[in-house]
C-alpha cells in the first residue's frame, strides 16, 4: 500500500479557507486556533486576576469593602484558583503555544487532525462560558475551594452548592473533552509528522516540554473526569461515592458509606501532575529563550530531555504529599515524602543547566531574556519552599498557612507566568510580524518581577507566624502581631500595583500590532524551524511549496569558525561553517 506521508502532502491538498468565517471563526489552521485559545485564556485569566484583587482588598483592609462578604470571598478564591490553574495556564501553554509552535517546530503544515483541533478550541470556549455562567445563576459560583473537596462542596452552608457546583463540574468535563482532543493532536503530530531529519533528540526543548506535558495531561485528566462524574452522581442522583454518613445543620443527610478521602486521592492523582503539565512546557520554552538570547547552546541537552521524562513519570507518584494532614498512614506519608524529595533531583539538574547555559554566554538582556532569568529566580525560590513542604513533619504545621500560598504561587503561578511573558515577548514577532515596544516591556518586567516578590515573599513570613489561609478575615487573634496586619495591607497594595502594571502589557500587545517596529525575518537569530518559514508571520500551510529538511540540532549558536553566530536547523552541514567536525570542539554543554 502506498500512503502519502502527512507532511509530504502537497500544499494545494490543504484546505484553503476563503470566507471570513472559515478563516477566523471555524478555522482549522493551527495558528488561528492558537490565537483563539490564547485570547480566550488571557480573557478568562484577567477575570481571575480581578477576583484576586477583590480578595486582597478584603485581606488588606478588612471590613472596608461591603461588596465582599465571607461567601463571595470563598467564591472568588475558588474561581480564581480553578481559572488560573486550568483555564488559563493549561489552556494557554498547551492550547496556545502548543498549537502555534508544534507544527512549525516539527516542520509540518498543520496538526495531524485539524478538524479535531478546531473542535478542541470550541469545546474549550464552551467550557469557559459554562464556568462563567455560574456567576449569574442562583447562589453564584461554588465556594468550595479549587480542590472541590466533598462533603462540604455539596452540603448546605457552602456557597454555590446548588447550581454553582453543577456548572463547575459540567465545565470541567467539557474542558477535559477539549483537552483530550487537543492533546491527542499534539502527541500524534510530534510523533508522526516530524519532517525529514528531525529526530527526537534534535527537537527543541520547547517541543519536548509540550510533548511530555501533553502525555501527562492525557493520562491525568481522566482522574479528574472520574471524580467529577462520581461527584455529580452524589450531587444529583443521591449516590454515596464520596459522601459519608453525617449530620448537616441538624439534619441527617441521605448519603451513607462514601469516602471523602477517595475524592482527595483521585483529585490529587490529577492535581499533582497538573502542576507539571503547566511547568514542563514552561521549562521547555525557557530553555529555548535562554539559549537563544545567551547565544549559547543549551547546557546538557540530553540531561534536560531525560529530566523532563523523569519528572513527568515521577509526578504520578507524589500526589499524596498534598494530603499529609488527611490522617493517612505514616508509612504512606514517608513514601510520598521520599518520592517528593527525589523529584527535586531532576528539577535541580534543570536549574543548574539553565544557569550553566548563561555561564560565559553572550547574554542579551532583551525583554524575553529578562523574564527568563526572572523565572530562574522565582522558580528556585518556589522550589526551595517546596522542599520544606515535602517533609511531613514540616508540612503539618505549615499546611494551612500562608506559607503554602506563597510556595505554590511562586513555583506555579509567578514562575510559569514569567515564562509565559518571556514566550510572548519572544514569539510575538513571529505571530504578528511586529516587535513589542521595548520600553514598555522593560517597565513591565521590573514592576512584575519586583511586585511579585513584594507580594509573595512576605507571605512566607506570615506562614511561619501561623496566619491561616482561606480565611475571610483574621480578626483580633492573639498570635498575630500588629505587624502581620500591616504586612497584609502592604501585600494588598503591591498586589494591586502588580495588577495595574499588567495593563501596560495588554496595551503593548494591542498597540504594537499596528505601531510596533517591523520584526523582519528571525529578529532574535534563533535556530529552530519556526523562524525559518518563507513568510513572517508564517502563511497558511507554513512552508510554501517545499517542507524544510533538518540537518542539525536546535542549538548551534556561536559555532567556532562559523560565519554567523547561529546556524538554523535547516542549514546543511558545512554550508555555513568553515570548520565544524564535532570532534570535541562543540560538544554537549560546552562551546569552545
Amino acid at each position, binding site marked *: 500500500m502506498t500512503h502519502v506521508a*502527512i507532511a*509530504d502532502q502537497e500544499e494545494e491538498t490543504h484546505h484553503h479557507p476563503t470566507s471570513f468565517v472559515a478563516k477566523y471563526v471555524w478555522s482549522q489552521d493551527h495558528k488561528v486556533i492558537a490565537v483563539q485559545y490564547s485570547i480566550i485564556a488571557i480573557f478568562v485569566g484577567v477575570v481571575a486576576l480581578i477576583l484576586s484583587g477583590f480578595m486582597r482588598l478584603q485581606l488588606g483592609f478588612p471590613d472596608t469593602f461591603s461588596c465582599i462578604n465571607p461567601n463571595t470571598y470563598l467564591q472568588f478564591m475558588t474561581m480564581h484558583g480553578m481559572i488560573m490553574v486550568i483555564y488559563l495556564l493549561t489552556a494557554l501553554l498547551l492550547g496556545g503555544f502548543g498549537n502555534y509552535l508544534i507544527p512549525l517546530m516539527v516542520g*509540518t503544515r498543520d496538526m495531524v487532525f485539524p478538524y479535531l483541533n478546531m473542535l478542541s478550541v470550541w469545546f474549550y470556549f464552551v467550557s469557559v462560558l459554562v464556568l462563567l455562567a455560574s456567576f449569574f445563576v442562583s447562589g453564584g459560583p461554588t465556594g468550595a475551594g479549587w480542590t472541590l473537596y466533598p462533603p462540604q462542596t455539596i452540603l448546605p452552608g457552602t456557597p454555590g452548592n446548588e447550581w454553582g457546583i453543577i456548572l463547575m463540574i459540567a465545565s470541567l468535563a467539557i474542558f477535559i473533552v477539549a483537552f483530550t482532543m487537543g492533546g491527542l493532536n499534539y502527541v500524534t503530530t510530534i510523533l508522526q509528522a*516530524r519532517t525529514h531529519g528531525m*529526530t527526537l*533528540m534534535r527537537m527543541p526543548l520547547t517541543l519536548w516540554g509540550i510533548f511530555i506535558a501533553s502525555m501527562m495531561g492525557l493520562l491525568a485528566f481522566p482522574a479528574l473526569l472520574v471524580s467529577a462524574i462520581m461527584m455529580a452522581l452524589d450531587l444529583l442522583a443521591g*449516590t454515596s461515592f464520596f459522601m459519608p454518613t453525617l449530620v448537616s445543620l441538624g439534619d441527617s443527610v441521605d448519603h451513607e458509606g462514601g469516602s471523602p478521602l477517595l475524592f482527595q*486521592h*483521585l483529585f490529587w492523582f490529577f492535581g499533582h501532575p497538573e502542576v507539571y503539565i503547566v511547568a514542563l512546557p514552561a521549562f521547555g520554552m525557557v530553555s529555548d529563550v535562554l539559549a537563544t538570547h545567551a547565544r549559547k547552546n543549551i547546557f546538557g541537552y540530553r540531561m534536560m530531555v531525560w529530566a523532563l521524562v523523569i519528572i513527568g513519570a515521577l509526578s504520578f507518584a507524589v500526589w499524596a504529599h498534598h494530603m499529609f494532614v488527611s490522617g493517612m498512614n505514616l508509612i504512606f506519608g514517608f513514601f510520598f515524602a521520599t518520592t517528593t524529595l527525589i523529584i527535586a533531583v531532576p528539577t535541580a539538574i534543570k536549574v543548574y543547566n539553565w544557569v550553566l547555559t548563561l555561564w560565559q554566554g553572550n547574554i542579551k538582556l532583551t525583554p524575553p531574556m529578562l523574564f527568563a532569568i526572572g523565572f530562574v529566580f522565582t522558580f528556585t525560590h518556589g522550589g526551595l519552599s517546596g522542599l520544606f513542604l515535602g517533609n511531613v513533619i514540616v508540612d503539618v504545621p505549615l499546611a494551612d498557612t500562608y506559607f503554602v500560598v506563597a510556595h505554590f504561587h511562586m513555583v506555579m503561578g509567578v514562575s510559569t507566568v514569567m515564562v509565559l511573558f518571556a514566550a510572548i515577548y519572544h514569539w510575538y514577532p513571529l505571530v504578528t510580524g511586529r516587535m513589542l515596544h521595548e520600553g514598555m516591556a522593560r517597565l513591565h518586567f521590573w514592576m512584575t518581577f519586583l511586585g511579585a516578590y513584594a507580594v509573595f515573599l512576605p507571605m512566607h513570613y506570615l506562614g511561619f507566624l501561623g496566619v491561616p489561609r482561606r480565611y475571610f478575615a483574621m480578626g483580633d487573634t492573639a498570635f498575630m502581631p500588629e505587624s502581620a496586619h500591616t504586612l497584609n495591607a502592604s501585600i494588598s497594595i503591591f498586589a494591586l500595583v502588580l495588577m495595574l502594571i499588567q495593563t501596560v502589557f495588554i496595551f503593548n500587545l494591542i498597540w504594537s500590532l499596528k505601531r510596533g517596529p517591523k520584526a523582519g525575518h528571525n529578529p532574535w537569530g534563533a535556530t529552530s524551524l519556526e523562524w525559518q518559514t518563507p513568510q513572517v508571520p508564517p502563511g497558511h500551510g507554513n512552508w510554501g511549496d517545499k517542507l524544510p529538511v533538518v540537518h542539525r540540532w536546535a542549538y548551534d549558536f556561536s559555532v567556532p569558525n562559523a560565519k554567523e553566530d547561529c546556524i538554523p536547523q535547516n542549514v546543511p552541514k558545512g554550508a555555513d561553517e568553515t570548520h565544524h567536525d*564535532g570532534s570535541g570542539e562543540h560538544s554537549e554543554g560546552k562551546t569552545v
Partner: protein
Amino acid sequence: MNIFQKLTEKPWEPSSDAMAAAVATGPTSQIDARKLMLNIFLAIVSVLFLLIFATFITHSQYPGFESLAGEPWKPFADTTNLWLNTLWLTLSSVAMHTGLVKARRGISGHALIAMVLAIFFAVQFVLAQLWLWRDLSGMGYTLPSNPANSYFYLMTGVHALHLIGGLVVVLRSTFLLWRGGALERIQNSLKLCATYWHYLLGLWLVLFFLLTRSPETYRAIAIACGLG
C-alpha cells in the same frame, strides 16, 4: 532504532549514527497517525477504568458495602443474563472482525453484511444492558441504594457510553462501505473499529469478572493491591 538508542543520540555531533538516525526519520502516513491516536485513546480509557476499579476495590472494604454476588440471594448469584449479554458483544466483535477480513479480500458485499450484523449485535448488547438495569432496579438495587450498586451502574454506564460513541464511527465506516468508497480507506477505518471493538469486549469481560465476585475475593484483591 529502538527508543533507548533514540534517546541516547548525541544530536550535537555529526556522527554517522546521528546522520543515520536523521535519514530514517520523516513524516509517516495519516493511517499510522490514526492508529497511534487510537492506541493513545485506548490508554486513556484504560486509565479511566483503572481509577474506577481502584476506588471500587477500596470502597469494597468499607462497612456497608453490599456486593452484588457471593450469596444465593444476591442478584448476580445467577449470571445467566450477564453471559447472554457477553454473547451479544462477542458476536458483534466476531462479526466486525469478519467484516474486516472480507473487506481486506475485496468482498465488499460480505463485508457490508458482517458490519450490519456487528451493529445489530452491539445494539442488542446495549438494549440487554438496559434490560439488566431495569431488572436490578425492579429488585430494589437502585443507583443510590448502596455503593456497590452505584459502581455497577457507573461502570456499565461508562462502558455503554464508549460503545455508543464507537457505534457512531462504525456507522460512518459502514456507510462508506455501502457507498463504495476507496477500499483502502475503508479497510483502515474498519481495522481501527475492530481494534476498538475487541478492546471494549475485553473491558466488558474485566467488568463482568469484577462485578460478580464475592466479598472475600474483593478482600483478597484489596490486600494484593495494598488497598486492604
